């Protein structure tokens, strides 16, 4: 038993190392790990195909797939570009106003849609505006990534770790609105003010030709009005479904996939084009991680970890919660927050089966995984995407620049979140 635990633990750690060190593409590394875990499990008798299959959380995968299809339909309509251009015209070239408007738009979009897609579509317009105004687009690009990472924490569908945690903990969309949203609102404002301060020098440069922005034609950006309207209507219905899913006794995955079906029927696009834009590698990565963690669970490694943690967390739940926020944030700053979340979920579940009230730890995991990604240039996919796009401008964002601005944002958001977490701890027990 102990040998099996050691083998599965070692295999998991090696796979994580391969993922984090980027020696191997993360999906390939996870697939390899999953195959080895099941292979060894069958050989040594600790894990079977049936167990592996049942360890895959199809609720998470279904919700992600449904939302990805909606985004894939919305992507080519030009809606994101429309909103970004609208914001830039509204700012009339004032850099601070532009920062606030673009930051708000990316945040609101990323609360309901995938962060990366939002950033991928808004960042080019941001770069364009920087070039037209003759100002450095770096503050706006970084603000978009940092604020969308922060805003994504607010809702169940805002960020993949939230989907995972909600599914494991049984949290509803409304739970996120009552527990996470108010905290994120305060944290987000703090992040915005901090960004305003950190970029005070860049933002003080007033462009000499603000009127040039009025030359951006709004109507020409929204190339497919009809589809955009239809998908937005479906998305609104899906959000209503999420709000009521407890009452309706429907899983979020069912709502998201039904919405995707509804949108596909209404829009009738070329399905292969739409499905091409779905990020299958992400879904495959999730599934493979689930299979790996399932193996760890089967050997009892996670139970052992939970037993170890139990004594500490029962004695000092508040302190343990805050420690968890910072621990997860620290790890998520350096590596992808999805494997961290998937690995910690069974540990917290183990604590729960030991009789501990784990609700505060679920929320600590939400905050840590969400806000931690801001710390470094590789902390979240949105950061990597923004930095990659900035290489196509005159002023690429370097890792050092990110550390100077992103790290303070991460520390501040975690500090504010920790403070509110402690102050409103009774809220998180329920």
């Amino acid at each position: 038993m102990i040998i099996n635990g050691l083998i599965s633990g070692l295999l998991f750690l090696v796979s994580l190392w391969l993922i984090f060190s980027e020696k191997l593409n993360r999906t390939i590394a996870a697939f390899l790990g999953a195959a080895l875990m099941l292979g060894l499990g069958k050989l040594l008798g600790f894990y079977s195909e049936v167990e592996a299959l049942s360890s895959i959380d199809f609720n998470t995968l279904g919700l992600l797939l449904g939302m990805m299809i909606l985004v894939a339909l919305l992507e080519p309509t030009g809606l994101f570009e429309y909103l970004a251009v609208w914001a830039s015209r509204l700012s009339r070239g004032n850099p601070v106003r532009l920062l606030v408007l673009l930051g708000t738009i990316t945040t609101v979009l990323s609360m309901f849609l995938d962060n990366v897609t939002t950033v991928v579509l808004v960042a080019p317009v941001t770069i364009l505006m920087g070039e037209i105004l003759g100002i450095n687009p770096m503050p706006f690009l970084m603000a978009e990534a940092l604020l969308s990472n922060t805003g994504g924490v607010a809702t169940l569908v805002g960020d993949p770790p939230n989907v995972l945690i909600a599914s494991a903990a049984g949290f509803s969309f409304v739970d996120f609105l009552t527990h996470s949203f108010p905290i994120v609102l305060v944290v987000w404002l703090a992040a915005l003010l901090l960004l305003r301060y950190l970029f005070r020098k860049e933002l003080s440069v007033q462009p000499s030709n603000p009127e040039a922005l009025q030359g951006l034609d709004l109507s020409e950006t929204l190339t497919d009005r009809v589809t955009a309207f239809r998908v937005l209507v479906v998305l609104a219905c899906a959000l209503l479904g999420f709000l009521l899913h407890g009452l309706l006794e429907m899983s979020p995955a069912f709502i998201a996939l039904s919405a995707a079906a509804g949108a596909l029927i209404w829009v009738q696009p070329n399905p292969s084009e739409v499905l091409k834009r779905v990020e299958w590698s992400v879904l495959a990565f999730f599934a493979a991680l689930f299979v790996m963690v399932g193996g760890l669970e089967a050997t009892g490694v996670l139970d052992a970890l939970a037993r170890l943690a139990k004594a500490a967390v029962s004695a000092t739940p508040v302190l343990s919660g805050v420690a968890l926020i910072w621990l997860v944030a620290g790890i998520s700053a350096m590596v992808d927050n999805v494997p961290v979340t998937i690995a910690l979920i069974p540990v917290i579940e183990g604590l729960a089966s030991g009789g501990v009230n784990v609700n505060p730890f679920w929320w600590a995991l939400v905050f840590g995984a969400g806000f931690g990604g801001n710390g470094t240039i590789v902390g979240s996919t949105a950061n990597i995407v923004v930095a990659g796009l900035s290489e196509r401008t005159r002023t690429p964002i370097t890792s050092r620049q990110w550390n100077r601005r992103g790290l303070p944002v991460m520390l501040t958001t975690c500090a504010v979140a920790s403070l509110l977490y402690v102050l409103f701890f009774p809220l998180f027990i329920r």
Partner: protein
Amino acid sequence: MLVRDCMKREVTSIRPTVTIRQAAALIVERHVGLLPVVDEHERLIGVVRLHDLMSLELPDFVNLFPEVDFVHDFGAVETTRPEPELLQRQATTLMEPAISAEEDCGLLRAYALMLHHSLLDLPVVTSDQKLVGLASRVDIGVAILSTWQTSDSPS
């Protein structure tokens, strides 16, 4: 007909030591779209295209959009010039690997190469990579179309 029969034999080429500013001056003076880069033995080692120099004027961000029709005013982009120190760098920093054809390459193969790699000019080399000529799409296309006028064409 082969590519050697329609290429230009007088080619303006540069050495790797030339600066970006000097390369630009040559392109302006000779009104050409491409400068082959050759070593001391006249062997082709790469090309510097007008397109590569233009990337310093118009950064790559334009390609992030499926179309730029909605941008009616390019604003500061129109007046932003590259930094002087950038122009002092060696032109080889912008050099692209040369896609070339040998002298005895058929015209349609040469044309297909250019289409495939989106080239406007094709350097022509000997079997030991010595630069001997340059053929543009127009040079090759004209040579091909001229065969349509021979006697066996329907009158």
